[in-house]
C-alpha cells in the first residue's frame, strides 16, 4: 500500500511540472523513492534527433555527471537505442552486460545491477522524447508491480513532456507572432510617416528615430551622398565618446564606399549629431556594428548604420528588420517617384495640348513648365528657356517678375487684361499654384496663362465698326430725311422752288440708297442662313448687259466719266440665270466703278465666252477686253464653259492685301469713310453670294491708282443640263 501511495504521489507531482527540468527532478526523486537506487534520464536533443543527452540522474558516483552523458542512437543492438526506437519497456537481469551504455557502464559497475529501461512516451503515442533507466542494487529482481509502476511513470512523464513541449511551442509561436505584429506595427507606422515623403533625408530621419523601438543601440546614423559631399547624420541614443562616433563614421564610410563604389574620405564628410551629447568620461568603445545600404529606385544612395558599446548585439534578426525597413522606405519612394513621373507626364501632355500658353514657375521663380503654345506666342526659339529669357521678351512695364513674386507670396491672382506682344493681343493671367496637404494649403509656385485674344479683339473691333457703319449708313440718311422733311414743312423753304426741288431730290436719293442697303442686309442675312435663293430662267445676257449699260450711262456722264461697253459677238443668245440677281451684281460692280473712278476716267462693261481648258487671258485678249488679270488667277484655270463679265475702271485701285478682303462683310466700310464715298461693304459680299449661287467665280485684279477689273463668271453647263 505504501508503494501505491508513493506511486500516486509521484504521478501527481509529475502533473504539476510545467518545465522540463522540474519534471525530470520530480521523476528522478520519485523513482528513487520507489526504490530504484540508480535513475538516469536521457532525452533526444532538440538539434539532433540521433543523439540522447543526459538530463539528470541519481545514485551515481560523484565524479559522474549525468548531464554530460551523450549516447548516439544506432539501429544496432545497443539497448538505449532499442528502447528509444521501439518505445518498449526492457528489463535487463544482473550480470548481463548490455551493449550501448557507453560511459554509464564504465562509471558504475552496472553488471552488478538489474536494469529497467522505459521510453519517455505518452501511452499510445509514437513520439518518444527519451529514455529512463532505473536499477536495483544487489542483484535484486524487479517485482511486477515495480515494473508496472516504472512503465506507467515513464508514460506519465512522456505525457507531461508532450504537454510541456506543446506549451513551449505555443509560447514560442505566440512570441514570434507578437514580435511580427510589433514589427508590422512599426513598419506600418513608418510607411505612413514616410508616406508621400520624397525627401530621402527626411525618410532617413524618420527611420532613425523609430529604430529605438526595435533595436538596442548606442547610436544610429544615416549617411547620404549629396553632390560633392557626404552627410553623416548620427543620432546618439546613449552617451558615448568622440572615439566611438569617429570609429562609427569610419566604418560607415568604408561600407558606403563599398556599396556605392566611391572613394570618399573623412574630410568629405559633413557630420550632424543629434540625440544626447558626447561625453568623454565614457570609456566604452564601439563593440557591435552593422549597416545596410539605402536604395532608392534600385540605386544605392547611402547607408544606415547601427552601433553599440555592447558586444555581440546584432545578429541576423536585427539585420533583417533593418533591411525590411530600408526596403520599405525605398519601395515607397520608388513607387512615389514613379507615380510622380507618370503624373508629370500626364500633366505635360495636358499642358502641351492646351490652346493657351502656359508657363509654370516654382516658389523660387525657377521655370518648371512652358508649353509650345507659350513659346510660339512669345517667339522663343529655345525649347527650355530660363525664366529670365521669358521675362526678357515680355514688355518691361508689365512688372511680371514682381507680380509673380506677389502671387507666390500672397496667393492672389493677377490679371493683365490686354497686352500686345509680337502683334498678338494677349490676356495674361497669373495665378498661384496651390496644393492641399495635411498641413494645409501650400503655395507651390505660380502659373502664367497667356490667352490669345487677338481674334476676340478683331471681332470686337468689327462689331464696333459695324455699329459705326449702321450709324453712318442708316441713321445718318434717315436723320437727314427727317430733317429735310422738317425743313420742307416750313412754308419759307417750300416757297423757294429751288430748295424744294433740291430737298425732294435728296430725299429720293437718300431713301433709295437706304432701301438698297436694307436689301443688302437682308440678302446677307439670307446667305448666312443658307437661304439666298436664285430663280434661274433662260435669259438673254446681252440684253441684260445693254440694259444696265444704259441705266448707268447718265450717272457716269454726271461723274464726268467715259463709259463704254465691249460685248463679244460670240456671247450665247440665252443663259440660265436669275435676271434680277444678275442685274443686282452688275449694279454693284458698275456703281462701285463709277464711285471710285475720279473725273475724266473710264469705266468699261465687257463680256466674252470662255471655253473649258482654254487660257482665259488669251481669250480676253482676243476679244480685246480691257483685262487687268495676270496669269496666276488659279480659280480661272479650271473653269467650265462660261460667260465672263468684267467691269474695268481707271479708278483708285485696291492694294493687293485688300483684294480678298473687299468681298468680306463690312470690310469696305473703312475705305468708304476715308474716301468720303458711301458704302457699307455689304454690296460686294452680296454680289459674291449671288455669283456663288450661280456656280460661278468672282474676283478682282487691281493696281492702286491705275484701276481695277472686277469679273464674274456664269457657267453655261447648267443651261445644257436644264435643257436635257
Amino acid at each position, binding site marked *: 500500500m505504501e508503494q501505491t501511495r508513493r506511486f500516486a504521489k509521484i504521478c501527481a507531482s509529475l502533473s504539476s511540472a510545467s518545465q522540463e527540468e522540474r519534471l525530470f527532478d520530480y521523476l528522478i526523486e520519485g523513482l528513487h523513492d520507489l526504490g530504484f537506487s540508480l535513475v538516469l534520464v536521457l532525452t533526444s536533443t532538440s538539434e539532433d534527433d540521433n543523439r540522447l543527452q543526459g538530463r539528470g540522474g541519481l545514485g551515481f558516483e560523484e565524479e559522474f555527471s549525468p548531464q554530460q552523458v551523450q549516447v548516439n542512437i544506432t539501429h544496432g543492438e545497443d539497448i538505449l537505442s532499442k528502447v528509444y526506437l521501439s518505445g518498449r519497456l526492457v528489463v535487463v537481469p544482473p550480470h548481463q552486460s548490455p551493449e550501448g551504455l557507453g560511459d554509464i557502464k564504465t562509471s558504475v559497475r552496472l553488471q552488478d545491477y538489474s536494469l529497467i529501461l522505459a521510453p519517455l512516451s505518452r501511452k499510445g503515442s509514437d513520439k518518444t522524447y527519451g529514455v529512463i533507466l532505473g536499477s536495483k542494487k544487489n542483484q535484486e529482481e524487479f517485482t511486477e508491480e515495480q515494473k508496472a509502476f516504472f512503465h506507467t511513470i515513464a508514460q506519465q512523464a512522456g505525457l507531461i513532456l508532450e504537454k510541456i513541449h506543446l506549451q513551449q511551442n505555443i509560447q514560442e509561436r505566440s512570441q514570434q507572432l507578437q514580435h511580427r505584429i510589433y514589427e508590422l506595427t512599426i513598419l506600418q507606422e513608418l510607411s505612413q510617416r514616410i508616406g508621400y515623403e520624397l525627401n530621402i533625408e527626411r525618410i532617413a530621419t524618420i527611420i532613425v528615430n523609430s529604430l529605438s523601438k526595435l533595436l538596442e543601440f548606442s547610436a544610429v546614423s544615416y549617411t547620404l551622398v549629396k553632390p560633392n559631399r557626404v552627410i553623416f547624420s548620427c543620432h546618439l541614443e546613449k552617451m558615448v565618446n568622440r572615439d566611438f562616433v569617429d570609429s562609427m563614421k569610419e566604418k560607415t564610410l568604408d561600407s558606403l564606399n563599398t556599396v556605392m563604389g566611391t572613394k570618399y574620405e573623412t574630410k568629405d564628410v559633413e557630420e550632424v549629431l543629434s540625440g544626447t551629447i558626447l561625453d568623454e568620461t565614457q570609456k566604452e568603445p564601439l563593440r557591435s556594428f552593422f549597416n545596410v545600404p539605402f536604395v532608392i529606385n534600385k540605386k544605392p544612395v547611402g547607408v544606415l548604420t547601427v552601433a553599440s558599446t555592447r558586444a555581440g548585439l546584432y545578429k541576423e534578426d536585427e539585420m533583417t528588420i533593418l533591411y525590411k525597413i530600408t526596403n520599405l522606405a525605398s519601395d515607397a519612394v520608388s513607387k512615389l517617384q514613379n507615380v510622380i513621373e507618370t503624373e508629370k507626364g500626364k500633366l505635360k501632355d495636358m499642358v502641351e495640348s492646351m490652346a493657351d500658353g502656359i508657363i509654370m514657375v516654382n516658389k523660387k521663380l525657377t521655370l518648371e513648365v512652358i508649353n509650345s503654345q507659350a513659346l510660339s506666342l512669345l517667339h522663343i526659339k529655345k525649347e527650355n528657356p530660363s525664366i529670365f529669357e521669358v521675362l526678357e521678351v515680355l514688355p518691361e512695364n508689365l512688372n511680371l517678375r514682381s507680380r509673380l513674386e506677389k502671387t507666390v507670396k500672397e496667393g492672389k491672382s493677377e490679371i493683365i487684361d490686354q497686352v500686345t506682344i509680337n502683334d498678338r493681343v494677349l490676356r495674361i493671367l497669373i495665378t498661384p499654384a496651390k496644393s492641399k496637404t495635411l498641413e494645409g494649403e501650400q503655395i507651390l509656385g505660380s502659373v502664367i496663362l497667356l490667352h490669345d485674344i487677338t481674334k476676340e479683339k478683331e471681332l470686337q473691333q468689327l462689331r464696333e465698326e459695324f455699329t*459705326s457703319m449702321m*450709324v453712318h449708313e442708316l*441713321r*445718318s*440718311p434717315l436723320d437727314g430725311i427727317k430733317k*429735310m422733311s422738317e425743313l420742307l414743312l416750313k412754308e419759307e423753304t417750300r416757297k423757294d422752288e429751288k430748295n424744294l426741288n433740291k430737298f425732294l431730290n*435728296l*430725299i429720293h436719293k437718300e431713301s433709295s440708297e437706304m432701301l438698297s442697303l436694307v436689301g443688302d442686309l437682308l440678302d446677307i442675312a439670307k446667305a448666312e442662313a443658307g437661304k439666298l435663293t436664285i430663280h434661274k430662267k433662260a435669259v438673254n445676257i446681252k440684253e441684260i448687259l445693254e440694259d444696265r449699260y444704259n441705266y448707268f450711262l447718265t450717272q457716269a456722264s454726271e461723274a464726268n466719266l467715259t463709259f463704254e461697253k465691249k460685248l463679244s459677238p460670240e456671247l450665247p443668245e440665252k443663259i440660265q440665270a436669275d435676271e434680277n440677281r444678275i442685274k443686282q451684281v452688275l449694279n454693284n460692280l458698275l456703281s462701285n466703278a463709277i464711285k471710285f473712278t475720279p473725273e475724266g476716267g473710264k469705266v468699261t462693261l465687257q463680256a466674252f465666252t470662255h471655253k473649258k481648258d482654254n487660257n482665259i487671258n488669251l481669250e480676253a485678249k482676243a476679244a480685246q477686253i480691257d483685262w487687268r488679270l495676270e496669269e496666276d488667277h488659279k480659280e480661272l484655270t479650271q473653269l467650265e464653259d462660261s460667260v465672263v463679265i468684267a467691269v474695268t475702271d481707271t479708278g483708285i485701285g485696291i492694294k493687293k492685301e485688300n483684294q480678298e478682303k473687299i468681298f468680306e462683310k463690312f470690310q469696305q466700310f473703312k475705305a468708304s469713310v476715308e474716301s*468720303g464715298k458711301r458704302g457699307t461693304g455689304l454690296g460686294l459680299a452680296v454680289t459674291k453670294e449671288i455669283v456663288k449661287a450661280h456656280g460661278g467665280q468672282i474676283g478682282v485684279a487691281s493696281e492702286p491708282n491705275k484701276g481695277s477689273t472686277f469679273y464674274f463668271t456664269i457657267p453655261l453647263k447648267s443651261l445644257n443640263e436644264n435643257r436635257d
Partner: protein
Amino acid sequence: MPEKKEKILIIEDEESMREVIKTRLEQEGYQVETASHGKGGLEKAKTSQPDLILLDLLLPKIGGLQVLEKLKEDASTNQIPVVIYSQLSDQDKIDKGMKLGAAGYFVKAESDLDGVIQSIKGYLKMGGIAGI
C-alpha cells in the same frame, strides 16, 4: 435777324445734312460757308475766319476730332467756337471732343435742328467762350 451777318462754317460730308443745315441757318440770317471734308474745312476756317464752326466727326481724309485739334492748335483759328454735330453718341467721343475744346456737342439723331440753332445763337453771344 442779326444786324451784321455772322458767318458760320459747316464741315459736313453728307450732302443732305449739309444742305439742310445750310438752308436752315440761312433762313435764320446767317452767312454760311460749307466744306465736305476735313482738309477743306481747315483751309476755309483759316481763310474765311467764321464766327462759329459746326463740325461733323465722321469725315473723309481728316477726321473731325483731328480737325478740331488742328483748329485749336492754330492761333488764327483757336478763338473760333466749334460746335460738334455728329451721329456719334458714345461718351468717350463726347469727352474727347470737349477736352479738345469744343464749345458744344450735339448728337444728330437726338437733337432737332431748332435746338442746335438756339444753342449756336447762345455761343455766338458769349463770344466764343465754351458754354458747357
